[in-house]
């Protein structure tokens, strides 16, 4: 066996079991463990302040949501322009508990891990329902079906008084073993929780893709008739892909509700759905690590644009609202440029770097 995946020049597997291992060598495993230690350790060493922690929490929530979108759009090839609505369903599951029981009921404050899973399951149910048209529809028609789900969701939230007609519904502070999580530690606490969830779900997807249930998604994307001939059920696989995406989105939504301590309709609009799609595409559709690159890149870009607009705004007449103009402009430009020049996303750069290190210092 070769030293590690960065230096190996080929595959030397002799059994399927070897190929299915998560870490090829012990060196890989130690590097990954070290990486995780750094991820968990750095907030304890550096004080970042609530504002920056919120940004990082936000990125992590987006990663959870984009992992789900990547399953349905990247791996299963079904375009979903309604992902923010699924995220919203997760968030409004938490919100409906708050509305019926009061926002600091023991279920919300103490049993929040259960509630997060419940939100995921509710999201999965809605995902399966919205996925039903996928039994008959393909490509553009399916995209428009998910679009209509998004619009109906938005209307329902704004119409129903139970959901406060889209106004903010407050969610209480949660308790940990050490007691109530206060204002100072709130975002730090949720950083650790969301990071744990991201790692768990990431391993979940990685393992899923090595089983028949994950491979059937890819098979149905590549050729559903061939998949049918191989004994898979393409229709069921598509519905199940939507249900999976709904689960991830539901979890992301519940986390969003807890981190922001409130649920408002404006976080789950069509605009956000497009944002998730952009993250998945910029990261790299159909790759697991793309779901991590995309949200980081897009959110980071947003921040940079905001600072740039602030600086430029000082030198321009106040009638020009540069911040509102620059954001959609750069966002659109990044999507268009990526699709035209790097359709496989940032994950492809990662792949190129990896293959380059294998051969260095030789060119091939």
């Amino acid at each position: 066996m070769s030293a590690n995946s960065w230096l190996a020049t080929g595959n030397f597997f002799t059994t399927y079991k070897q190929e299915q291992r998560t870490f090829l060598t012990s060196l890989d495993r130690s590097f990954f463990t070290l990486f995780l230690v750094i991820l968990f350790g750095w907030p304890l060493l550096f004080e970042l302040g609530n504002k920056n922690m919120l940004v990082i929490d936000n990125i992590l929530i987006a990663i959870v949501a984009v992992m789900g979108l990547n399953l349905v759009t990247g791996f299963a090839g079904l375009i979903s322009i309604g992902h923010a609505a699924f995220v919203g369903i997760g968030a409004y599951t938490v919100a409906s508990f708050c509305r019926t029981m009061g926002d600091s009921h023991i279920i919300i404050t103490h049993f929040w891990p259960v509630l997060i899973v419940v939100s995921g399951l509710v999201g999965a149910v809605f995902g399966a329902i919205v996925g039903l048209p996928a039994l008959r529809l393909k490509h553009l028609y399916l995209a428009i079906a998910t679009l209509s789900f998004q619009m109906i969701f938005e209307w329902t939230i704004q119409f129903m008084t139970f959901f406060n007609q889209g106004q903010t519904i407050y969610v209480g502070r949660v308790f940990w073993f050490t007691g109530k999580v206060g204002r100072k530690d709130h975002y730090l606490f949720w950083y650790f929780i969301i990071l744990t969830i991201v790692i768990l779900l990431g391993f979940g997807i990685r393992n899923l893709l090595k089983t028949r249930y994950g491979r059937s998604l890819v098979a149905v994307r590549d050729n559903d008739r061939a998949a049918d001939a191989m004994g898979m059920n393409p229709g069921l696989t598509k519905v199940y892909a939507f249900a999976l995406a709904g689960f991830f989105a539901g979890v992301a939504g519940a986390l969003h509700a807890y981190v922001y301590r409130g649920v408002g309709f404006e976080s789950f609009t069509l605009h956000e759905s497009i944002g998730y799609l952009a993250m998945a595409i910029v990261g790299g559709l159909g790759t697991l690590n793309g779901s991590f690159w995309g949200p980081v890149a897009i959110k980071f870009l947003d921040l940079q644009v905001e600072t740039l607009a602030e600086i430029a705004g000082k030198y321009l007449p106040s009638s020009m609202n540069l911040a509102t103009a620059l954001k959609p402009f750069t966002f659109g430009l990044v999507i268009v440029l990526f699709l035209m020049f790097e359709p496989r996303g940032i994950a492809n750069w990662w792949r190129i770097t990896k293959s380059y290190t294998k051969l260095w210092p030789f060119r091939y």
Partner: protein
Amino acid sequence: MSYFFQIVVSGIVVGSIYALAALGLVLVYKSSRVANFAHGQIIAAGAFITYYLSVSLGVPIFFSFLASMIITFFLAMSVERIFLRKLIGEPIISVIMVTIGLGSILDGLIYLTPFGSENFSFPAFLPQEPLSLGGVSISWTQLVGVIVTFILIGGLSWFFKKSTIGISMRAVSDDQFASMSVGISVPKVFGLAWALAGLSAAAAGCIIGNITGLNFDTLHAFGIIVFPVIILGGLDSILGAVVAGIIIGLIQQFSSGYLDGNFGLKGTGDVMPYIILVVVLFFKPHGLFGIHEIERV
């Protein structure tokens, strides 16, 4: 009873605008199988160009209407040439996302101008008092808007039926390889389809702007509401777009006229087109006049 006819009239007015807005999408989809999510922004751009020419530069409204149609004609054509032509043959998700990205870029450009945040309205150039007919009233702007819409749709239909370029466009939408073999330049036809879509979008923008006033949010919302229309009409049928536009317009006006206020409902006009869309997708995905090409798995 006059309430009923009033709703019918306003439904037809709204519906004919939907038809004109949907026409652009149908043209693009028919020739190049691209769903254009940036159509609402082109509609808005057309309306704002007309306003700028007629109010700020003082060009007579009729000429600025024509000029904005010509400008968006070339704008849409260059959009196709620069961005979409590279993506011919790419997966549909890339094409959809490129048009969404283009819409976002246009959003940014429009937000840079005062049009992005403020409300404007065209100077009145038609008689102000509405036309009244047996209790049903229709304003002159609406009437002229509907007439202009139908003239444009009729003109475009004639163009497709009779002119050489129109026939070559229909040939491309029928079979790209066969039309290439008889000497039709397929990329040129794609460009022309986009250009005509831009032209009709500018016309739709001007008419909407005249009836409802110029507000960027309302104008670019038309880019999304046309999807129920084109799905109901069948994605690649011009006749379908017209019929479905009027049906959706009528349904919208009827639901906001009769459902709102009853049963504790409100704002049903906004959601009804999408409910129709879901129903159509479930039971008749190829729409009223579309080609049966949905494959089942």
